[in-house]
Every structure is written in structure tokens, then in C-alpha cells.
């Protein structure tokens, strides 16, 4: 068993992270003392029903909001704000509508001094190819499908070579077939780049297929109720979704999610 507390192997560490919002009906406890360590190169899924603070968790790691207490550490440094070392992909992609595909991907690199035009070009070309967008490089977002837009968002985050890639319900708005294509794509990118990936989803099947570990969040307050290892190996394709051990794992995690969703709903 890996020692998840020793920090030098860990890319990302959350220590007693708590986030409260001031709502109309008093303080909302979005997340309550979250402890999590993600080793370098790991692929972690976070599942939970709506209201479990999944998106809040990503926003805290991305540095777009600050925890009420506790701290987020990236390579042993406390996260104080957003930065390109933590790439974030939103559910809607948040692709720049006024930029072509390649200029979307170029955004982060344009901000860097001392990066030659050829170097930039070569990097953009590689990530366009990796995400299957080479033929669409000059297209505008309005001409793209939802799946293609998500590819742009992923390529745009990855070209900055983040230490962690954060995906916030990235395929939730896609049709089932496109969603599976994207799941296979993100698995392949993970293999090709060795990036640490943290994906948040409400889809347990997706969480099990993608992650080496599945972290289950309960609601009200958002907290970790279970962490499940996924012993499916790293060489997965879609057929694994029909394997008995996959189905068993999925069912047991769905049960956990359901129990906590109901408990929270009854309490609310």
C-alpha cells in the first residue's frame, strides 16, 4: 500500500479543506474537512450527487476560490490562486468563441515570454493532433460540436503542461457515444503525457472507467465518505465496462452514492 501521507510523492495534497458559503439561509457547508493526497501521475475520479461540493473542490484546487480553512498544496506549495500548473476544463468547455481552434489552444502560450514562434507552433500542432483537431484548426467554436469543443478545452489546458489536469463534469452535456469517445481520448492522453488527472463527475460508470481510484463525496456537508481503488489495470478499453468486476464495483459505488444522497436529502 502506498503511503499517501508522505508528501514528496504526492502532486496534490488537500489538508482539512473546508469551504463555507454565506447563503441567504445562513452559512452553507459546501465542503467539510477534506483530506486527500494524489500521487504524481495518478488518475483520480471524484463522484457525488449534486450538492456534494464536487465543483467547489475543483474550484479550490484550481485556486479560483480560497478554502475557509485548511490548505491545498501542489508539490508541497500552498495554492494561493489560479495558474497554468493546474489546467481546468469546464463542463461547457469555456472555449473562446472569438478565437479559432488553434488560437484557443495558443492562448496560454501567448502569455509566455521567451517562447519562440516555432516552438509554440510545434507544441500546438502536437496537442491538436493528440486531440484529433488538426483538420479543424481554423474552425470557429460555433462550427464545432459539443465534443469537439471539449477537445479544444482539453488541448488548451494541456499545452501549458499542467502538473494536474482538472476536469469538471467534462462530458456531462455530451451524448452517450461522444461521451465514450471522449473517455477513451482522455485515458489515452493520460497515458501519453503522464499528467496527473482529477475528474469530477456524477456518473459512477464514468468515474470507475476513468479513475485508478474513486473518491465518493457525500452531501450536506460535502465530505469524503469513501475511497475505492479500481483494480482494472491501466490498459482499459470500453469493453471493460461489461466485465463482471467493473459492474460489481460500479454497483457498490452507486449504492454508496445513493445512501448518502438520500440521507442528505432527508436531512435537508
Amino acid at each position, binding site marked *: 500500500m502506498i503511503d499517501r501521507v508522505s508528501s514528496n510523492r504526492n502532486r496534490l495534497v488537500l489538508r482539512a479543506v473546508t469551504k463555507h458559503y454565506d447563503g441567504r439561509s445562513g452559512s452553507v457547508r459546501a465542503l467539510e474537512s477534506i483530506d486527500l493526497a494524489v500521487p504524481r501521475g495518478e488518475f483520480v475520479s471524484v463522484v457525488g450527487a449534486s450538492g456534494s461540493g464536487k465543483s467547489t473542490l475543483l474550484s479550490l484546487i*484550481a*485556486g*479560483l476560490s480560497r478554502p475557509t480553512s485548511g490548505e491545498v498544496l501542489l508539490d508541497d506549495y500552498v495554492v494561493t490562486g489560479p495558474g497554468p500548473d493546474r*489546467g*481546468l476544463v*469546464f463542463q461547457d468547455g*469555456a472555449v*473562446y468563441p*472569438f478565437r479559432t481552434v488553434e488560437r484557443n489552444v495558443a*492562448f496560454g502560450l501567448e502569455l509566455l515570454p521567451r517562447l519562440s514562434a516555432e516552438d509554440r507552433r510545434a507544441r500546438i500542432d502536437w496537442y491538436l493532433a493528440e486531440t484529433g483537431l488538426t483538420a479543424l484548426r481554423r474552425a470557429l467554436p460555433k462550427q464545432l460540436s459539443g465534443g469537439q469543443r471539449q477537445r479544444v478545452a482539453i488541448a488548451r489546458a494541456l499545452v501549458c503542461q499542467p502538473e494536474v489536469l482538472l476536469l469538471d463534469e467534462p462530458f456531462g452535456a455530451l451524448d452517450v457515444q461522444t461521451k465514450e469517445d471522449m473517455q477513451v481520448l482522455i485515458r489515452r492522453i493520460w497515458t501519453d503525457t503522464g499528467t496527473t488527472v482529477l475528474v469530477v463527475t456524477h456518473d459512477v460508470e464514468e468515474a470507475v472507467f476513468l479513475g485508478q481510484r474513486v473518491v465518493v463525496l457525500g452531501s450536506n456537508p460535502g465530505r469524503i465518505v469513501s475511497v475505492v481503488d479500481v483494480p482494472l489495470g491501466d490498459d482499459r478499453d470500453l469493453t471493460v465496462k461489461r466485465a463482471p468486476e467493473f459492474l460489481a464495483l460500479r454497483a457498490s459505488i452507486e449504492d454508496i452514492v445513493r445512501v448518502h444522497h438520500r440521507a442528505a436529502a432527508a436531512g435537508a
Partner: protein
Amino acid sequence: MSQTATTTRPRWSALPRRRPPRPRPAVATLRVDISPLARAIFITLSVAGPLLGWWLLTATGAVDARFLPSPVEAVNSAVEMAASGQLLDDAWASVRRVLYGFGLAVVASVPLGLLMGSFRSIWSLFEPAFGLLRYLPAPAFVPLLIGWLGLDEAPKLTLIFIATFFFNTLMTADVVRTVPVSLIDVSYTLGARTGEVLRKVVVPHSLPGIIDAIRVNAAAAWGAVVVAELVASESGLGYRITRLARFSQYEGIFAVLIVIALIGLAIDIALRILRDRVGRWV
């Protein structure tokens, strides 16, 4: 959310039914495209209808010809005035005032609107005052401006500025506020700083909407310049109208009105073309 308890549904009377709506032709259906022919007919009617009405009023003698010249007389008068070069001088005098006065208003209002739409502090600092000031009709300032600034160009340019600056600022701020927060957030995660987000995300995303605002307010500027020239001026299309009115040359006034409309239309088309080019991504 409690567990659903099974209860038997009460026996209500049957729900009343409504007759299904009759199918409607495209011209009477909400937001549906009409045929190119129908479109052409409506567009022709839009231009030809008022012209025809004008012509009928004069041809039938329903209105005294001294007060309402026929379209033909108005056009003839316009050609005559144009030939003497007078109309061109007047038009240019008015256009120049709009270029300066409205140009100044745009240069001042767009950056301020960008800041108001981006920063809550600047919004709170200006919005209450501007929200009030924009309801003061610009023509009401004419006597004041003449008192303060004399009879030169300054009061006319200032009037155009007052008539457009507050609206253009608030409309720009509203456009800026529609930039999705997710675009701003994702830019931070890609390493952009505040200034870079403004320059590389907020400005390009807002630009088509800002041009739309400028288009709307250009019409107001064009109206303001004529008002300014009606009151105190030695040149311009508004001045020409007062001169002609003094000698009861109504066909001349109509000629000037035609010119005012055509220049306004030209400004509108130019800005629409610019908007479509800049907003190709929309």
C-alpha cells in the same frame, strides 16, 4: 425529498380539451422565416408605402401644397441645392460636428464602460449618477451651453457629447457584463493576469456588442447635431432648415430632411458592415 408513498389517484372529471390550433402561414408564425418573395414584398412596402402616402396627400390636394410639397418637388429642390454646393457644405458641417462630438463621446465612453462592466467598484461609482443623467434630455442643455460656451463649435460638440456619452457608457458596461464568468476564470487558470484577461478576453468578446451600442447612439448624435444647429448656428443642416423656414421654402426643408435621412442611413449601414466583420464569430 421523502420516499413516495403509494396512494390511489382520486377520480377527477376528465380534463377539459382545447381545440388544436389551426395551422398558420409563415408570416403569422412566431420567429419563422418567410419566403424570399414575401420578404421582398415587405421590404418594398416599407419604403414605398410612406412615399406613396406622401405623394397621395399632395396629388389629391388634401394638404395645402405650400406646406407639403410633393416628393418630386422635394427631390428637385434637393438637386438644385446640391448643384449650388450649398447642401454639401451644410451636410459636411453637420457630419464634421458628429465626427468630433460623437467621436469624443465614444473615445471616452467605451473605456469607461469596459471598466464599469468589469469592476464592481467602478460600476457602483458611476452607475447611479449616469442612470440619472441619461434621462436629462440633451436639448434642455442648449441654453445653458450657449451661456457657458458661447455660440462657437464648443456648445454644439458638447451637446452631442451629452446626448450620447451616458447611454454609450451604460450600454458598453451592459455588454461587458455579459462576458461569461467561465471564460474569465479559465483565462486565469491558463496564466492570464487581470490586464491580459481584459485585453484578450473581455474586449474581443464585447466588441460586436459595443459596435451595436455605437450604432444606436450614432442615431442620437445625428439627432443632437440638428437640434444644436436649429438653435444657434451659422452652418449645418439644422441651420439650413431654420433659414428655409424663415422664407417658407417648405420644399427645401423636405430636401434637407431627405439628406439627413440618407446620411443617417449611410452611417447605419457602415456600422452594420463593421459589426458583421468584427462579429463573424458570433
